[in-house]
């Protein structure tokens, strides 16, 4: 065993060494890399855990192959990037600055390095069949804008690129990586390499590539503590390596890749969490049928205000007593600051409540088979524990609900209280991802008329003046949502259509002011609160990490010969690949260029408004049937933040150079 272990390690380090050489050969002629070739020892390719080592040993051939493919992909990526580096020109103006802020790429928060790498990897994966010309490409990686540059400029650029590449390699060499065995829902496993900068979202995207699943929002990484019999969903923003580092060496814990509809249940049916009538009259039926517009406004209200709203949740739960197998019924309440209970003989007013637990240091898990193991009253248990605790301990709190519904409410409520807005952001990214995937698969055959402009368009109408990108994004959101809902039935998602189409359809509508909040006889419902979720965060997703990249330029004029060839993703696609419509789709959500060619009829500021409210209107008569809505103003404040950020970045660069 030890031997084969070594073998594999040896193999890896050889491969990685090769990568290094490649990298080095880039830099060698133009510049000495800032630091000579990193010593092998620093190449901290750590296979973190004993079990992982073991799992490596136990790997099926195919798994090993896949792993190799990963690594090879890494290398070929490096190759490709040298080529690309020549091509990329104006995009890279920020590169000289990168040595001073190496961690931008590392965190992936700004998405320079990490994401780009992740994406391009997927493209040069030799061993896997090329993913059906992944639409991802135009999302995060705007095609390099090949503006004709003078020779010197080009040379300078190339040099800068090489410096950057070299630095990145150096840094990458220090990045901790784990090989993680992920259990699929068909009982197979896949081994993945996860580096310490990757968030769950990145790993999921990676898995999407590998599995060709439908990418819907329910897919999640799921950790199971075999010994403690607890499990939970990885949140999309969690750092995978960090979570796994809490496991002990001999752990039997597992990571699964599966669909859990609980993951984002609150965003699909917020009413079940926010408007539950505490079972007063099992009014579930009416609840379930909330229309999309109201859902939207409910979410907007709960997650997009200046502070998020935690669902009001209270009720009797069973608490497992420390170290005993007895359960005590207590009345618990959820608040943003933690879980509280009503002490004996007290009322449930705020002042009497006693704090049971706060969420800062604990994660929430589902308990499995607690009935059998701990004599729990029901099997609907949730567990709170510090992530580092791996063995049974008095510091693990077990709570037991009466039914599955309450369990789900509590778990979701606690997640909302703990993660706040992040959860919503995660969801939106997931939806955007799912939307892209589903859009792509349906792009070819039928671009039928968008079936849903009616009702759903209403949800975005309040922001007629927010740039169109937002619309298309929310269109994707809706679409993906629909897709997510239909996917379960294995039906092909309805209503996926040409990206241009829905937008053209929606815009005229959306530039109308919201339905007026009419005081008397008309429909007040929803309209005031339907200010779309895009408000205030239009730049925040789905291209969020890439916002700081220069906006996608118009597609390169191909006929000019001395221009660098178009980006590889246009070249490398299968021959029958229809290039996606100009990258106007989601990639420009955060960019500050004027919207790309297909200009919507956008009558935004001068849109036909309801007759303006007369200034000298006599005192409002008591019998009004209709009130004119507030006029949609022009101009968007949305882009300001981004441009500020750009300015700041530029300024910063100026300071450094």
């Amino acid at each position: 065993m030890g031997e084969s272990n070594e073998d594999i390690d040896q193999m890896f380090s050889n491969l990685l060494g090769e990568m290094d050489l490649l990298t080095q050969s880039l830099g060698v002629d133009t510049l000495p890399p800032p630091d000579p070739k990193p010593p092998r020892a620093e190449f901290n390719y750590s296979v973190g855990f004993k079990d992982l080592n073991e799992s490596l040993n136990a790997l099926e051939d195919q798994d090993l192959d896949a792993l190799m493919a990963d690594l090879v992909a890494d290398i070929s990526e490096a190759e490709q990037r040298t080529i690309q580096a020549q091509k990329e020109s104006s995009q890279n103006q920020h590169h000289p600055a990168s040595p001073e802020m190496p961690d931008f790429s590392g965190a992936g928060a700004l998405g320079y390095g990490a994401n780009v790498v992740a994406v391009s990897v997927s493209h040069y994966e030799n061993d896997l069949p090329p993913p059906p010309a992944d639409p991802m490409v135009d999302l995060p990686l705007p095609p390099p804008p090949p503006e004709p540059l003078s020779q010197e400029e080009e040379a300078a650029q190339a040099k800068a690129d090489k410096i950057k590449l070299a630095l990145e390699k150096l840094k990458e060499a220090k990045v901790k990586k784990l090989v993680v065995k992920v259990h699929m829902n068909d009982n197979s496993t896949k081994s993945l390499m996860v580096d310490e900068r990757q968030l769950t979202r990145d790993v999921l995207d990676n898995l999407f590539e590998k599995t060709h699943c439908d990418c819907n929002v329910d897919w999640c990484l799921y950790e199971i503590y075999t010994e403690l019999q607890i499990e939970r969903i990885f949140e999309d923003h969690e750092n995978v390596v960090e979570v796994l580092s809490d496991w002990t060496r001999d752990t039997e814990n597992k990571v699964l890749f599966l669909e859990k509809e609980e993951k984002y249940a609150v965003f699909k049916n917020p009413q079940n969490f926010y408007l539950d009538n505490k079972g007063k009259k099992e009014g579930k039926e009416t609840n379930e049928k909330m229309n999309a517009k109201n859902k939207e406004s409910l979410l907007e209200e709960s997650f997009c205000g200046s502070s998020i709203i935690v669902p009001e949740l209270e009720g009797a739960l069973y608490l497992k007593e420390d170290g005993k197998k007895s359960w005590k019924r207590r009345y618990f309440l959820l608040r943003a600051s933690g879980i509280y209970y009503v002490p004996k003989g007290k009322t449930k007013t705020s002042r009497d409540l006693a704090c049971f637990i706060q969420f800062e240091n604990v994660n929430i898990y589902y308990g499995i088979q607690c009935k059998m193991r701990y004599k729990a009253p029901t099997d609907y248990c949730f567990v709170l524990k510090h992530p580092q605790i791996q063995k049974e301990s008095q510091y693990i709190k077990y709570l037991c609900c009466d039914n599955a519904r309450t369990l789900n409410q509590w778990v979701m409520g606690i997640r909302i209280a703990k993660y706040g807005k992040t959860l919503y952001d995660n969801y939106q990214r997931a939806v955007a991802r799912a939307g892209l995937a589903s859009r792509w698969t349906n792009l070819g055959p039928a671009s039928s008329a968008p079936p849903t402009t009616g009702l759903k368009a209403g949800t975005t109408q309040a922001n007629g003046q927010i740039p169109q990108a937002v619309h298309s994004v929310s269109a994707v959101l809706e679409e993906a949502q629909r897709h997510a809902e239909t996917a379960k039935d294995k039906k092909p998602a309805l209503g996926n259509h040409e990206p241009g189409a829905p937008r053209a359809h929606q815009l005229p509508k959306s530039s109308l002011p919201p339905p007026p909040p009419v005081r008397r006889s008309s429909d007040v419902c929803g309209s005031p609160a339907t200010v779309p979720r895009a408000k205030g965060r239009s730049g925040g997703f789905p291209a969020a990490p890439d916002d700081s990249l220069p906006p996608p330029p118009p597609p390169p004029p191909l006929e000019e010969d001395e221009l660098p060839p178009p980006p590889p993703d246009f070249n490398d696609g299968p021959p029958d690949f229809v290039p996606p419509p100009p990258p106007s789709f989601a990639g420009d959500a955060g960019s500050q260029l004027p919207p790309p060619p297909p200009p919507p009829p956008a009558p935004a500021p001068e849109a036909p408004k309801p007759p303006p409210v007369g200034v000298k209107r006599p005192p409002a008569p008591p019998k009004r049937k209709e009130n004119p809505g507030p006029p949609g103003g022009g101009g968007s404040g949305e882009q300001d933040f981004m441009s500020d950020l750009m300015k700041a970045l530029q300024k910063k660069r100026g300071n450094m150079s």
Partner: protein
Amino acid sequence: MAGMKTATGDYIDSSWELQVFVGEEDPEAESVTLRVTGESHIGGVLLKIVEEIKRKQDWSDHAIWWEQKRQWLLQTHWTLDKYGILADARLFFGPQHRPIILRLPNRRALRLRASFSQPLFQAVAAICRLLSIRHPEELSLLRAPEKKEKKKKDKEPEEELYDLTKVVLAGGVAPALFRGMPAHFSDSAQTEACYHMLSRPQPPPDPALLQRLPRPSSLLDKTQLHSRWLDSSRCLMQQGITAGDMLWLRFKYYSFFDLDPKTDPVRLTQLYEQARWDLLLEETDCTEEEMMVFAALQYHINKLSQSGEVGEPTGTDPGLDDLDAALNNLEVKLEGSASTDVLDNLTTIPELKDYLRIFRPRKLTLKGYRQHWVVFKETTLSYYKSQDEAPGDPIQQLNLKGCEVVPDVNVSGQKFCIKLLVPSPEGMSEVYLRCQDEKQYAHWMAGCRLASKGRTMADSSYPSEVQAILAFLSLQRTGGGGSGGHPQGPDAAVEGLNPYGLVAPRFQRKFKAKQLTPRILEAHQNVAQLSLSEAQLRFIQAWQSLPDFGISYVVVRFKGSRKDEILGIANNRLIRIDLAVGDVVKTWRFSNMRQWNVNWDIRQVAIEFDEHINVAFSCISASCRIVHEYIGGYIFLSTRERARGEELDEDLFLQLTGGHEAF
């Protein structure tokens, strides 16, 4: 024109004499008598009055108030006939803007001139513009509560009254900034001081005052406040307000739009103050843990504002500077997270090494504290039998990342312990570190705190953390130690802070100051890095996430019900609450509302929701106008959009909230 006479002095036209008093509603005011006809225009009458008075003065703000009808005659092109004015009308020619005293959300008093002739909505908008508070639609004025005369008035010290009556604001555009404040504040030292009062948080109140101020003891008490709101669609004059009256300015609608610390220092501060008083006076209840967080934030905010670190630089382009700072911040954070980088600068990481006494509570052990040589490096604590053995293997090593750090301190007892709850795969292990003195304690404590968040003592916040701990210890010495549990000790207010000024009075009864201090300190560690405006924002957000936040209570009687109940009005829903028990009976959301109607005669509000749910109630503790205005106001606020910016759709507001004067 009017007043044609024959040679004998008889009037031959239909003119008559109109007496107009000059000045505010004062029966002994001087008066002028004019000769007018029914066709005289108000403008002409005004001109005549001015001629008649024969005094050089700026009369532009003056207008005629018709006392009997309680109405301003503002339409200068209307004739007297059109207004229906006859010779018996009591008219007063007085200024439209008159001084009032405003009690601000921060409880300071400010004298300024407010419009007595415009609808209150506009008057408030003008006031807010003067005070540079954006989104005036969220605020309104209340009548000051009637003073109870039982206490001798002269005992109250004369409070400082800020004066802005002389400040005139150029109309139209938002005032430009000058020297970091709106230009109209920078005229004199006095107005500048006023701006500081407005834009900076006030120091914590005297605990004794807190004890004395009235606090609601039941839901019923909480309804009192809401009966005092003034009517937005009528002017101050019509509501019986006279010059010099005291009015309260408060955020009325709990739906705060686009809070931006950079452009909103006054708004943010006043909102913070309102939130703070709301919590201190127990208008909104919170739990003990939440109160500690609020107290810690107040302490932090006060510390920052006292030390003059007002956060926002007044430099050339604060927006960009902030971004730069944010980016720097980001870099620091990113660097902090990559442990490999930390390794690289190993030399720069300070260590702590000292003899400390350590205690590990275990079952069935009687061992107490034992002296150990403890080394604290990065986030790891290692201890050895003695210094000599330090190069070898430690007895135990604890990685403090993710651990819980709890102070266990008694200053007067000279006990400085740090309780650590260190997570490990097996559970949490408890360790106590006992330090010799405050200084040692502060350094180790600060280190432990940073380590628990995965940062090392190389972190830039380390020195300030040490200082904060020392400051808090000294606070504890003065606050709790000396005066034997009596918070009102005179020295308490002088030196440092009294923790009692940071919490609601019921916690004053529940805890001694020395119990309170460490808990506040504990909560403080999580907020110590915030800037002033961030801390204020955090405070407001925490306030907003309280379950009871933002509910205005009114006593109502539902149609078909025999007993009084409470109606809670929040920004998104109406809540029916049992008056006796306080339980929520039913919730209706505005988003399901189809229409509402007010029957002014029987003072009943009827609301129709989706699915033909109808609700009707009559209002008892407040007039139904107030309930109506609350509902309409919230509907109005929910139509606001970012893109519309500052402009206000006043007509819509008045449509949604007004209407009753038609009857």
